[in-house]
């Protein structure tokens, strides 16, 4: 019936392939785990999809990079935290979780608020450190390195997601 698909092993965009693989895997897990039926609100589901996206990005890169380690650590803590919180039923909103996770990460790393680079780019470096996960304590050189890798992976992830959305919405 359908022609057999030849797996392209010499694909230059292997990162994209791996990302797609992992992202779909995570999405499916997401749909299987929770009772993610139609009564769930869309923003909750979209939040989970976003987490799946970041998780898949971090998994593909592995522990090589500081940002991927930070993301994986955050997600692992979040899972533990939600498990603990569900017992108490104190809060159900994930903003609270995010705040407490931020508290955890600041305890973990030296959070220097006034970091002044010798080049004099103080405000921007702080902003960049906030944007890229896991670069709080790195020097300027490593920070730029991590940013470059993060940008590359983010761009690939965005492309994968865009392709998926197009695909899902046109078939």
């Amino acid at each position, binding site marked *: *019936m*359908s*022609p*057999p*698909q030849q*797996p392209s*092993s010499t*694909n230059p965009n292997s990162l*994209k*392939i791996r990302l*797609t*693989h992992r992202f*779909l*895997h995570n*999405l*499916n897990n997401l*749909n*299987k785990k929770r009772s*993610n*039926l*139609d*009564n*769930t609100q*869309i923003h909750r589901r*979209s*939040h*989970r*999809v976003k987490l*799946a*996206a970041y998780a898949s990005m971090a998994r593909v890169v592995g522990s090589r990079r500081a940002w991927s380690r930070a993301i994986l650590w955050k997600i692992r803590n979040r899972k533990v935290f939600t498990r603990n919180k569900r017992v108490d039923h104190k809060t159900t909103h994930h903003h609270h979780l995010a705040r407490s996770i931020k508290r955890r990460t600041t305890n973990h790393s030296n959070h220097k608020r006034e970091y002044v680079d*010798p*080049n004099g*780019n103080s405000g*921007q*470096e702080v902003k*960049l450190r906030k*944007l*890229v996960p896991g670069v709080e304590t790195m020097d300027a*050189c490593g920070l*730029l*390195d991590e*940013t*470059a890798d*993060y*940008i*590359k992976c*983010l*761009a690939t*992830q*965005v492309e994968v*997601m865009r*392709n*998926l*959305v*197009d*695909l*899902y*919405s*046109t*078939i």
Partner: protein
Amino acid sequence: METDNSLETTSSILPNSSPNNFNLVKEEPIDSDSLHNSSPNLSDPIISKSTKRKEREKNVKSSAKKSKNVANETDGEELPYVHVRARRGQATDSHSLAERARREKINARMKLLQELVPGCNKISGTAMVLDEIINHVQSLQHQVEFLSMRLAAVHPNIDINLDNIFSAESGSLMECSFPAMVSPQPLSHQLWQPDGLTPQPLWGVEEMNPNFITPENSLLSYDSSGNSVSLYTNQLKMEL
């Protein structure tokens, strides 16, 4: 004259005789235009010696490299430790050497980043480039969020296991029991029509938020032969 100084330091073959230097200075713009160091310029009637030709080649090389009036450029970013040569008028103690090496590492990374971020090549100055980078990262993160919203709207309950399609290990991809995997789970909310010949828009289902997807988007119709799904994966593979 500064050009004389640079010529002296780069090529130390001939002693400083003024007619030689004058010839060389005259020749330099001509050679830099042509940018070829193999064919000597025969327009100058005075030049006859081979040593002068050698010197001309050296000067062409140096001018082709666009050397500024600096004796030596720094190099060796790829070496395990950086060879940093002192430029004219710069301190050479260990602190400033290390500082300079560090600064050049940072500049190299900034150049890489400039290539990654579109539209950053023309901007000069570290502050503006950093601003661009920050904006780019923020925009990418917003795009992820927006696309995840769209995906959540479009992808409600589809339990396709596309992993097996993309696994490079499995030889033939479509023969892994695909129809079995597309398990018809809560059928009441199912977009899939098992006998879907005409894709009817089923967006009247409750979970579909019509604000996100316009009704004329065709649904994922699945006919039992599995051909449409193969088309689906074909598309996905093509887009990849």
